Every structure is written in structure tokens, then in C-alpha cells.
């Protein structure tokens, strides 16, 4: 999804030393993963898997640490059709839940399920329809192979106070538990996890040390939803990125329907409630699906993939130049706050940083098929 540009370089350097040593705290076996709700790469080819159903974060040592310095893109047409052929079914029975690119090898990993794609809808996300239980690697030539979760080297930790199974339904008509883990990011030796907790203010962010230990920090989040004209603590962050600005670390978060908000990490206190600053309202009727940081002409940008709105580009500088957050209602699908560029791609639901010249995206092509395509940072 969105490996941080800043950390990419350090991964590359680390990778030259990596020689498959057993990692501390890792065991060999088959982790009990019930659903791959979200996944993200960390250092040394470690893939973090967030599993909303088991309430666990599983760190998997993929041993995929062969450095790849190409600046070429990757293209696979009709991704669902190709995966369907491999799994012995038809494209309408394939759902792609998430994508993460290994920053060392530039290999994309897809979280996939055999689910009924026709059940996806305006407000029905992949995790609402089925549980991803298969990881597929896309090789440079476009061929694919399964990344088996059997007998692997892994380490795991269970989130405390995760939202209960029977707590209720989302507006998308699925169990709230589906959103127990919505996104995660590895940043500065820690894993940040967003989702729903069992607390009064359910929208939470957790900070886990990595390598995992028993320590967990959990804070609740409050954000102003301009399209609803309300401060909310129940809706979870859908996607987020960490970002260093003027010596301080921040998180930039995106919520359904569609506020963009930020807060400095030093505001997070275990058990506390953090109020973030809403810097933009990108318009109602939309779920932000994915967000990455990338560079273009020496400047840092955010790219945001959406469920119903176009792919968007935001100058990160603008996020931090906005002194006062939004606090009044925005009506009628309008937008407000910092500006964004609407990029010429709709139906892009997954994006990942591939290399300095390319963003990898799942793109709905005009022929109705979904392609894996590389969006050149020269244009995008």
C-alpha cells in the first residue's frame, strides 16, 4: 500500500546485509490467520498482516530480500481473470482485498479471496463480502505465484480491547468486527494500527513495538466530519500515512465520506483521546481506500485512492500550512479545505509506492476489467 519514502532507503541498505538469519521472536509454523484484512511491508522483507477476526497482527518473514533497483513499471491486464484461471474459477469469483509492494524487491503482494465479486457495492468493501486467505506474488514478467502461509517464519501479537464480535453492524451491513483493523504502517521501529476498539470512543490507534513485546499503546481518535457537520469518535480511520514535518512525526489520516485530518504523534497518550485537525473535506459519498506518500519534482505529495471519487493528489506542504482545521458543515457533495488535483483515473482502489518513477495501482480500465498498472510520477 504505502511504504514510506523515507524508510525505503534504509530498507535498501539493510537488505544488503540480510542473509536469512532467524529473526528474534520469530517462530516457524503456520500462523492462525482468519482474514487478511490489511497488509503492509516493514523492513527486511517483513510483511505485516492485520487480521480483524483473530484480532492479531502477524509479522511474516517473506525472505524476499533480493534488491531490485529498476525504475520500470509493472503491468498485468485483467488481473481478476488471470487469478481466476490459476484458482480454477471465473473472474467474478475473485476479490482482491489489498496490495502491498515489498520495497526491497519491488514485488507486489495481493491479498485475495474466492468471494462473490458481484456482492461488492457502493458501500460494500472486499472485507465486507469475504475473508482474504490467500497471498499472491506478482513476478516481474507478470506471472504469479502463491505466497504460502504454511510453515513460515513469523511473529505475532494480539491487540487488546479489540471490538467484540457481536457488537453491531456497520453502515455497510457487515459486523463492526470487520473494521477492527483497517490499516497499519511500520514507522520508526513501531507498528501503527488503526481500527475499532471496544472502548467508548471506538476509533482507535494502537502503537506496538517491533519486534513485538507485551507493550501496547492505544488512543481514541476524534475528528471533525465536515460532510456530516459533526465531531465523531466512532468511525475508524480508513487509511493513513506517517510523515515527518519540521522534525516532528505526524499521522495523516483519511476517513469515510471524506475528511483528511492530521495530528502530531507526540499527542498520543495511552488511554487518551486525540483530536485531530481536519484539513480537507474531499466530498461525501466516498470511502478513501488507500493513501501513499511520493515525490514529484522534488516535492512530497499524497496520492489518495477512493471508492467512488477520482484518484486525488495533494501537496503535503498544504496539509501543514493550514493553521486552523475545518469546523463548519460542507453540504451537497461539495469539498472544502486544502485543494487537490483530480487525477485522470477513476475506479482506482489500491495504490502502492513501486519505485521513484512509478506508483502501482489497481485500475478499472474502460473495458470493465481491472488491470495492475504503473502510474508514472512524471504525469501523476
Amino acid at each position: 500500500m504505502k511504504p514510506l519514502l523515507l524508510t525505503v532507503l534504509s530498507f535498501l541498505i539493510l537488505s544488503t546485509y540480510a542473509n536469512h538469519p532467524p529473526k528474534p521472536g520469530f517462530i516457524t509454523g503456520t500462523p492462525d490467520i482468519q482474514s487478511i484484512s490489511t497488509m503492509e511491508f516493514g523492513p527486511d522483507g517483513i510483511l505485516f498482516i492485520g487480521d480483524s477476526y483473530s484480532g492479531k497482527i502477524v509479522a511474516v518473514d517473506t525472505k524476499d530480500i533480493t534488491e531490485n533497483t529498476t525504475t520500470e513499471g509493472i503491468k498485468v491486464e485483467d488481473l481478476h481473470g488471470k487469478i481466476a484461471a490459476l484458482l480454477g474459477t471465473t473472474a467474478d469469483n475473485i476479490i482482491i482485498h489489498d496490495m502491498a509492494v515489498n520495497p526491497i524487491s519491488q514485488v507486489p503482494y495481493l491479498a485475495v479471496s474466492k468471494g462473490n465479486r458481484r456482492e461488492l457495492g457502493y458501500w460494500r468493501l472486499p472485507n465486507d463480502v469475504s475473508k482474504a486467505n490467500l497471498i499472491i506474488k506478482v513476478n516481474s514478467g507478470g506471472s504469479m505465484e502463491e505466497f504460502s502461509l504454511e510453515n513460515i517464519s513469523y511473529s505475532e501479537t494480539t491487540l487488546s480491547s479489540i471490538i467484540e464480535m457481536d457488537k453491531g453492524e456497520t453502515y455497510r451491513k457487515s459486523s463492526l468486527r470487520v473494521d477492527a483493523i483497517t490499516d497499519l504502517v511500520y514507522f520508526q521501529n513501531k507498528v501503527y494500527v488503526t481500527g475499532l476498539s471496544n472502548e467508548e470512543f471506538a476509533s482507535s490507534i494502537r502503537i506496538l513495538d517491533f519486534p513485538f513485546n507485551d507493550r501496547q499503546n492505544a488512543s481514541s481518535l476524534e475528528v471533525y466530519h465536515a460532510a456530516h457537520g459533526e465531531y465523531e469518535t466512532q468511525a475508524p480511520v480508513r487509511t493513513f500515512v506517517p510523515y515527518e514535518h519540521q522534525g516532528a512525526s505526524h499521522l495523516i489520516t483519511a476517513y469515510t465520506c471524506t475528511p483528511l485530518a492530521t495530528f502530531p504523534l507526540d499527542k498520543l497518550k495511552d488511554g487518551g483521546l486525540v483530536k485531530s485537525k481536519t484539513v480537507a473535506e474531499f466530498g461525501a459519498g466516498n470511502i478513501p481506500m488507500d493513501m501513499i506518500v511520493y515525490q514529484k519534482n522534488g516535492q512530497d505529495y499524497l496520492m489518495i485512492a477512493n471508492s467512488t471519487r477520482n484518484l486525488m493528489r495533494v501537496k503535503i506542504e498544504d496539509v501543514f500550512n493550514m493553521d486552523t482545521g475545518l469546523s463548519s458543515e460542507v453540504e451537497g457533495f461539495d469539498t472544502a479545505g486544502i485543494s487537490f488535483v483530480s487525477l485522470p483515473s477513476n475506479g482506482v482502489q489500491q495504490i502502492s509506492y513501486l519505485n521513484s518513477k512509478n506508483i502501482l495501482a489497481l485500475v478499472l480500465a474502460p473495458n470493465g476489467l481491472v488491470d495492475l498498472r504503473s502510474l508514472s510520477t512524471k504525469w501523476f
Partner: protein
Amino acid sequence: MVLIKYCVLAWLLGLGPALLWAQQVTLIEDSSHVYFGELIVEGINWSEDEWKEMAQDPQNMGANYLQVYVGKDPSGHQQPAMWGKYAASEHAMRFKPRFPFEFDQDYYYRFKHNQHRTEGSFRVEDRYPATRPRLLSLEPKIPVVPANILRFYLHFSTPMRRDSPYQYIHLIDQQGDTVKQAFFPAEPPLWDRQGKRLTLLFDPGRIKSGLESHEAWGLALKTNQQYHLVVEEKFSSYRGQTLSSSVSHSFVVGPLDIQSPQINNWKISAPKAHSQDSLMITFDEPIDRAQAMRWIQVQQSQDKPTKGKVHFSGEGNWVFKPDLPWGIQPYEIMVNNQLEDLAGNSLRKPFEMSAGGTDTLTPAGWITWPFHPVE
């Protein structure tokens, strides 16, 4: 064993000795067959080197000989071959798809070995009528179950949708409240290969003392209370047809069962020689029937199994009806000592026995129990 032949004779292109070998490609559709759901090519004359390679690395070598595609004829499409596991034996090879072949879906296979080529299409006919699925039975169907019962089995009339079944199954206590996290949400869910039987496992962590969730939550079931296991109407078949109504099964919870079944207390009623009368075992307590189906067998001697059909009587007795009349010679009933009662206590050890205590145990294996048909 029912073998459905899709391509009986190979398409032979070679001449000379090669003609002696004809490949036969079969899809195993009998669900009781050990290779159910696999495609088998028989009649392959491996050279010594080929056989060595196949035996060493069937996965990579197998894909060189046999490919299976989605569709009736892959020639017009640029699509990759299906993923699956390859295995080889002396004159045959097998392909087990990564996910089971789907009903009413066309597939195409290509086999090539030296000059021999055979190819063709097949499909797994959907033999189930397009009617609403029914919950045929729920086991164990006894009025009182132990408080530490480990499993329920749901048997459906039709293959069901495999993903996320747990959302449609609820355990309700006598106050009408849902018992939370009673079942272990195994992923993938514990369906049999046909997708008709679902194993519902009570969370073993809550049952076994000393484990975190046992200490935090305790047993899901309380002794002397009544419960309802409710299967929602929304539960659907693989075709998307739902049950016609929700189904509720009531039961009362008895005390804990921490004892292993004692085979010495089992009784057999031996059949008459030269008859096809049933052989019956009466247990000392209810046994896990799914396990008993495969872990109690009859044989005349080693490697000479006696074929027959097993069912359970209304009282829960194991009943075996031989395909052929009994002889007069002695037979053996073979019972695997891993066979469990309803609470997971096996003949070998009680469920509660910790792993540390297993050194002194009898190893897992078969118990031989001889009997003579009555003259």
C-alpha cells in the same frame, strides 16, 4: 468406487512400443475416495530418469507433463494453467487443484509425455437439484451433552457456501442471550470436502483449563442450563439459495466429562456366519460419530479389509453391514485409539491431559479386537 472417465483412450501420436501405453485420464468424483476431486492420469511409462525426477520433485516436474485450464478450450486464450499439487506413482500422476473444481464449470486438461498426447475437457456435473438446502441433521442429537462438549456437526442436503458460516450460527442460553465467542472461528471453516458437513468446534481454549481464554471466559456451556443452537435462515448453499427457515436445536447441559471411553466396556453383537447380518458395537458413552466412521474398521487380517456400510442406530450404536456374507473365520475390529467421545477424551488420553504427560502414553495407533461370527 465410481470412476467417471472423461477420456478413455489417449490420443496416440507415437509408433512402435509407445503404442503399448495408453493413458487414461480420470476425475475422481466419489467423495469417499482418498483422491476425491483429483485428476488422475494412468498408464504412464516413465523412463528410469523421469521416474526419479518425478519422485524427487513432483511439483515442478508434474507441471511439465500435465496442465489443467479453466474453460472448454484454452487455445483461444492466453491464460495460465491452474495451480495445484502434483503427485506421481509408478505408472500414474495426479493433480489436486488449489481449490476444488467447481460445479458446472468447464475445465480443460493437456497431458504430454514423449510422443503421447491426450487432451480434452471435463466438467463436474452439479448433481444437486436447484432446491433450497436443508439442514438434514445436527449431531450429536442427544438431549443432554457434557458441559465440555467439543464439537457439533451440521449435515446439509447440498454443498453450502463455504465462507463465513459462523455469522449464521448462534448459541442462545435459556435467558435468550447469545453466548459470545462460543465457537472457534476456524479459517478456512471446517467443511468436509463436499461442503455438506460443517464441524462446529467449541473454542478449545475455553474448554482446556489453564489456557488464557478458559481462565478469562470459562466454559461456554453451564451445567443444568438449557441452550438452543440456532442456524439462521440466511445460511445459503453454494448456489446462493437460503434455508427455508431457521432451525433451532435445544439441548440440556450435563456435568463435565473428563474420562476417556473404556473399550473394555464396549459390547459387540456378533453376526451369524454365512449371513449378511450387521455387526454392532454398543459404546459405554456417546462417541464422535464422524471419527467413528473412519476410525472403526473391520478386517479379516492385515491388508484384507472387510467392505461394508456403516451407520449409527437410533441409540447411537455403531452398525456395520458387510457387502458380502460373513465367513466362519475370525475377524478383527480395528479401533484407532485417537477416537474421541463428545468431549474430546480419546481412548488414548483424556482431553485435559497436558502435553507434558504424553511421554508415558501408548502411541497413537490401532487397537485390534478379534471376534468370531456365530456358527
